[in-house]
């Protein structure tokens, strides 16, 4: 199944949108500045409709089926969120309108900040970062600014566990700081010996540590307070990667565990669609001592313009802000969706999200762990990591298992991450899946393990029933065809 490119169905003179006639006298066009050609496609509306419908049919989303992509929290997203984000009173707001004309929007942002503070245990929140990695950059720059403010400009080291997301070390480098990697212990925790040694070695140069907890193995660090305590003892700050917050709603507040700054992924935990890779939203929460470094602006109550009945909300710049990290105020449309979600869940509903996310992951692990080795076998949180390989089928790899899952109409788990697990399959079922779905997925994995022994070629050649067969990624990188060009 393939679909021609939009350029291949283009025919001269077609257009899917008719615009109004010019209703003012034409002005002279600027001499020498007008382009001669604009090589964009020309298609009718029905052609356009079929093209994008066909393309969508070659895609797999949460609305299609189970999507246990580890670390990505592919939960079902309620449709009401979409309707709310499209209300004309939100969708048609210009970011530079006077504050008195957008009090409804500022109310929503202020209260979302308050909700996230309460959920994460922080003193202040900025909604500006556009995605998780953007929140990381924000948080690391805040930690750097904190030390600079205290005159400790020699501090340039960030500790990052070997199980961390790649964004953690990349955000560190972008902030002009150095990464020192910390190994994990035999139970998947931060190795405390290695941590203490690194703290000593880089004593005086420590900016802090970036930690995902629960980590990318899906494990809650058994010594979390010792870890955060140790980093603090050496003058460092703790950055929390909130990618895995879906395990912690009403379970534990990162702020209470010793984290100084953390990003939330609204598109994961708070149920906004991933859209084929964004838009996300990565608000950052900060403890008392880091709050003044948050990116500008944040929403606050203006006491001078408020009265007993009505609050007046206004944008303010935190006193020692690192600056602004994007134009305007953040992904407002995503914020509306997350606000709607939190209002509809309430405190008990949020707690149940984490309860069921963790129960689902442990149940799924219990179903497959005798067949797919789980290298760190402990009670997991919202996800777990197993090995997608078998001692008696040595030529079969995690990638083959993943591709074969497509034939059973499932989206594969995350492959080959975290890097510390051999042939990793990282599985995150989320709370929105039923026991029937989990069982069907487990049954498919067990059958695939059987196939690996009896008919490994079936796996090597998978997928057999996807819109295309296995694609040649090496060829893509070699030929580098990155746009369509007319023959």
């Amino acid at each position, binding site marked *: 199944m393939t679909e021609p490119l939009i350029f291949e169905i283009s025919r001269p003179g077609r257009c899917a949108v008719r*615009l109004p006639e010019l209703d003012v006298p034409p002005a002279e066009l600027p001499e020498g500045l007008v382009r001669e050609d604009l090589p964009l496609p020309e298609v009718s509306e029905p052609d356009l409709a079929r093209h994008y419908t066909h393309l969508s049919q070659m895609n797999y989303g949460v609305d299609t089926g189970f999507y246990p992509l580890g670390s990505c929290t592919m939960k079902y997203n309620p449709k009401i969120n979409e309707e709310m984000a499209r209300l004309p*009173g939100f969708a048609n707001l210009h970011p*530079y309108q006077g504050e008195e004309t957008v009090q409804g929007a500022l109310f929503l942002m202020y209260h979302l900040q308050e909700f996230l503070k309460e959920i994460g245990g922080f003193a202040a929140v900025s909604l500006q970062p556009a995605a998780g990695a953007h929140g990381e950059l924000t948080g690391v720059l805040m930690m750097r600014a904190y030390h600079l403010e205290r005159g400790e400009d020699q501090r340039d080291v960030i500790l990052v566990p070997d199980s961390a997301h790649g964004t953690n070390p990349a955000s560190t*480098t972008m902030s002009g700081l150095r990464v020192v990697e910390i190994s994990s212990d035999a139970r998947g925790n931060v190795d405390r010996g290695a941590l203490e040694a690194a703290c000593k070695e880089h004593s005086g140069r420590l900016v802090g540590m970036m930690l995902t907890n629960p980590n990318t193995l899906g494990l809650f660090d058994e010594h979390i307070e010792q870890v955060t305590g140790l980093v603090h003892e050496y003058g460092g700050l703790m950055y929390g990667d909130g990618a895995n917050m879906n395990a912690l709603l009403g379970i534990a507040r990162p702020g209470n565990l010793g984290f100084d700054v953390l990003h939330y992924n609204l598109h994961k935990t708070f149920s906004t669609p991933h859209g084929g890779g964004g838009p996300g939203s990565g608000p950052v929460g900060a403890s008392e001592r880091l709050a003044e470094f948050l990116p500008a602006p944040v929403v606050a109550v203006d006491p001078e313009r408020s009265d007993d009945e009505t609050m007046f909300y206004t944008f303010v710049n935190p006193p020692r802000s690192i600056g*602004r990290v994007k134009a305007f105020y953040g992904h407002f449309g995503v914020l509306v969706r997350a606000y709607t979600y939190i*209002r509809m869940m309430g405190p008990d509903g949020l707690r149940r999200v984490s309860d069921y996310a963790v129960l689902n992951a442990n149940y799924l692990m*219990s179903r497959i762990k005798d067949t797919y080795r789980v290298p760190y076998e402990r009670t997991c949180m919202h996800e777990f990591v197993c090995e997608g390989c078998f001692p008696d089928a040595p030529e079969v790899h995690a990638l083959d298992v993943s591709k074969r899952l497509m034939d059973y109409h499932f989206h594969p788990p995350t492959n080959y991450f975290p890097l510390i697990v051999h042939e990793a399959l990282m599985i995150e079922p989320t709370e929105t899946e039923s026991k029937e779905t989990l069982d069907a997925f487990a049954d498919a994995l067990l059958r695939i393990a059987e196939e690996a022994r009896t008919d490994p070629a079936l796996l090597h050649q998978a997928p057999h029933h996807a819109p295309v067969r296995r694609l040649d990624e090496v060829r893509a990188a070699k030929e580098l065809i990155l746009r369509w060009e007319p023959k």
Partner: protein
Amino acid sequence: MLAAVGVRSIEALFEDVPARVRFPDLDLPPALSEMEARWELEELAGANLTTADGPCFLGAGAYRHFVPAVVDAFLRRGEFYTAYTPYQPEISQGTLQAIFEYQTMICALTGMEVSNASHYDGATATAEAVISAINAHRLRRRKVVVSPFVHPEYRAVVRTYTQGMGLTIVGDEDSEVELPDLVSQVDAETACLIAQTPNFLGQIEDLAGLADAVHARGALLVVVADPISLGLLKPPGAFGADVVVGDGQGLGVGLNFGGPSLGFFATRMEYVRRMAGRLVGQTADVEGQRGFVLTLSTREQHIRREKATSNICTNEGLVALAAAIYMAALGRCGMRQVAELCYHKAHYAQERIAEINGFSVVGDKPFFKEFVVRCPRPVKEINDYLLEEEGIIGGYDLGRDYSHLKDHMLLCVTEMNPREEIDLLVEALREE
């Protein structure tokens, strides 16, 4: 399920969490049903005045452009909407092909050879362009020259992003300096010069010769552009720009109080390995059938970690899809027509306002859809009058960012402003 796991209660799954902080009571408002949530959100939305409630002449980086119904109709197909980054290409061909087509259309619009799959917005795309330019010079050049007429918030974001990199950013401290004079600040230490066209004041910058002058000093030319203007204007690629970035919000995305929008980033093939962000490339499956995959991921954080070209992971996939549908729907003729409607209407408005006593238009450079008006009174007073008396959302107060432009208003006119609205604005300003 608990029995299969071997625990007696869900609570027992959380014993690794320190008991002292386990199971906090969240002080949040109680849950609402869908109906109640809708009422609450509708009330909040209803408390705002919107750009659809009356004539609006506010732009300054966020623009009212028409969004045809086809954009949202196909964008909202669940298969697109609820997918993640297309790491598994065999079941993500829809997203991948749509992004490949997006990349092609951005190249066509900007006159460049390669486009990535998107950044968060125009401001962060500009910051990433600076980092690419620094990397292209292998960190040996750490100076950046930026025009004061690049969007003020974009310049702010460039400074935030690069605050740990030890860069010197110059050029915009003199808020009246023009591009030809700015070039003299480009030297052997300079990684790039950043210009914007149409610039923040709406004027079309003269890029002819600029790239040569910048290249002569070994630096790169980064151009921030309005994609709607590129329906009409010669693309920065034709003037020798090395990187073209901008905000794609005008391409069928809508305002949404400033986000989400889309940062586009296009460059020449020579710099493809220095660029940030995801890239979709064409390949074939084992049967020789054409297909698309994410490629050159060895630049990216999940492979290269601390040596990656950027930390970007989640981008604006869905918004890039919206932009692709928009560009395909309007196509060669429609994009030109939108740009011409903006151009002619803005010129009509500018000429009419220039006739009003007390108001004068500023600058003699050609402009696209925005222009500067010197006002007889503070901009805020005029805007308050326009809103209260006529229900008009007026222009942007340039005194916020430029000390020499106190009492100057930046007005924006697009295809969304019928002549009656422009005439109403002119009458209101006359009576004011």
